């Protein structure tokens, strides 16, 4: 009673009152699902909703030797790495330009950022109409220039690069804005000192801007890698995973294993493996970040 009347007692009571819905919510929607998924990954069939059989770690053993899973993973790694590099490099260049004295910089910034806030459903629709082999504008432009045309999304060798290009198109603006904010927070006197020493614009960019942006680059790389690793919308909406599984990325493979083949146990194991990969990527990049930033 005395505790409740003290300031700290009342604060604690209020804190627990406020936190109780949050504790309930995060338990039900975050911790419980992960526990259930781990449990389900030890069963074959449809644990929780139908017939299933306990098979221990069989699903994991199978996943590691399954050629389709391995292919999907390699494709996803290519997708994530190329997508991340392909987004960050142009975004950095654009940010370096737009952080400087450029006419209409605010408007240009907003326009380049705009695709980022559009649903991928609309993005996919627009690009599929542009890339359409018969009626699309891209092939028409290429053939009028005398260049070879392509069936972009239906040829195994071009499908994945095309999907990567579309995701880059959508994501560039976000990375650019984050870079601009970071560049603007670099102290001006560093550049002034470099000017006094007669440094060229190029030297200033590579010796001051780029190194000081390392934390920003790592932040963007982590979130971009994680987003790409679990991206389902891009392959689902642009190609449906085809042609000949050339764009069947890991997330799409898990989704179809779970919701089309209803192989819940196996899909849970695949999902859990992805969680482990994501945790490793995050941990590695943050370790690198800590080392880099401590100068």
């Amino acid at each position, binding site marked *: 009673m005395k505790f409740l009347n003290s*300031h700290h007692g*009342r604060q604690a009571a209020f804190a627990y009152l*406020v936190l109780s819905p949050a504790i309930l919510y995060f338990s039900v929607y975050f911790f419980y699902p992960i526990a259930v998924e781990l449990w389900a990954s030890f069963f074959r069939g449809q644990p929780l909703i139908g017939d299933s059989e306990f098979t221990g770690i069989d699903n994991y053993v199978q996943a590691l030797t399954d050629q389709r899973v391995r292919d999907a993973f390699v494709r996803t790694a290519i997708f994530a790495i190329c997508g991340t590099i392909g987004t960050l490099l142009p975004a950095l260049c654009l940010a370096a330009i737009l952080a400087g004295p450029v006419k209409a910089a605010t408007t240009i910034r907003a*326009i380049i950022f705009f695709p980022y806030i559009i*649903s991928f459903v609309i993005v996919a629709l627009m690009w599929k109409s542009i890339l359409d082999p018969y009626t699309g504008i891209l092939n028409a432009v290429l053939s009028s220039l005398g260049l070879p045309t392509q069936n972009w999304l239906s040829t195994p060798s071009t499908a994945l690069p095309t999907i990567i290009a579309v995701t880059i198109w959508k994501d560039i603006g976000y990375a650019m804005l984050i870079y601009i904010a970071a560049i603007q927070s670099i102290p001006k006197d560093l550049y002034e000192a470099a000017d006094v020493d007669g440094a060229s614009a190029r030297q200033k960019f590579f010796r001051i801007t780029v190194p000081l942006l390392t934390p920003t680059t790592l932040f963007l790389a982590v979130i971009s890698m994680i987003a790409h690793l679990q991206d389902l919308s891009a392959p689902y909406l642009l190609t449906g995973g085809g042609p000949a599984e050339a764009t069947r990325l890991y997330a799409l493979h898990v989704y179809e294993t779970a919701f089309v083949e209803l192989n819940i146990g196996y899909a849970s194991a695949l999902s859990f493996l992805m969680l482990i990969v994501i945790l490793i990527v*995050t941990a590695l990049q943050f370790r690198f970040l800590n080392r880099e930033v401590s100068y």
Partner: protein
Amino acid sequence: MRHVADQRSAGTSLITYIVLAFFVILALFPFFYMVSLSLQSDADLFSGLPVIIPSELQFSNYLTIWEKAPFARFIVNSFVIAGGITILHLLFDPLIGYVFAKLVFPGMRFMFAALLSTLMLPFFIRMIPLYILTAELGWLDTYQGLIMPFAMSAYGIFMMRQFIRPIPSDLLDAARLDGASEWRIYRAVVLPQLGPPMATLALLTFVFQFNEFLWPLVVVSSVEMRPITTGLTLFNSEFFTQWNLTATGGAILFVPSLLLFVFMQRYFVQSVMMSGMK
């Protein structure tokens, strides 16, 4: 010497503007092409040569399309789902953020660590058990089934906490000495100072949820419960190569995002830059 330098910077700035023009056109062209397609007749579409400016503007596509799918319902659904989630975030995130920023209670560190650990459990990984959970609750194909998995986020709570921390604790202690309850301190002292960050939170949450595609794809089975995103895919597969009609659907469903962006453009850019600073 000066003259040479000027010439060089004029050259660099020409290249700069060419690069910028390229990216601006690249960003805008697909939208322009979508609107152009939506106004084309079948004759234009199958003329063998892609048309950028329609030979005649066929506005009738915009009437035809309305009979093929319940667009109004899709738009209402998107607003109910994204709006509902945004309201829940505005109710809970600042309040919980306040508790973690300013209150002293046993177990605080542990609970904060547990909260941050949920950032490592992305939605995709939880999707299969969440589907089963939603089915067990009988919430498949309902608004609550679509809203609840996104009702709170550690990211939003963390962001609010970062903005509440700088508020002087002396101010809160003074209010406590005057006998104000914790709830009153939150309502009267903390909340009024959170205008801009809460607007940021609302904007980012709304847009993110408005574009959500995966979860509705998994839990919605009827046509009437579809939000814009999955509503459009239904349509896309039905008229596969009739790009003029598909583009009309895309153009209609793109209007809410466009309006939101045009009116809040400045704010959008600031929001993202602000959230990235953290």
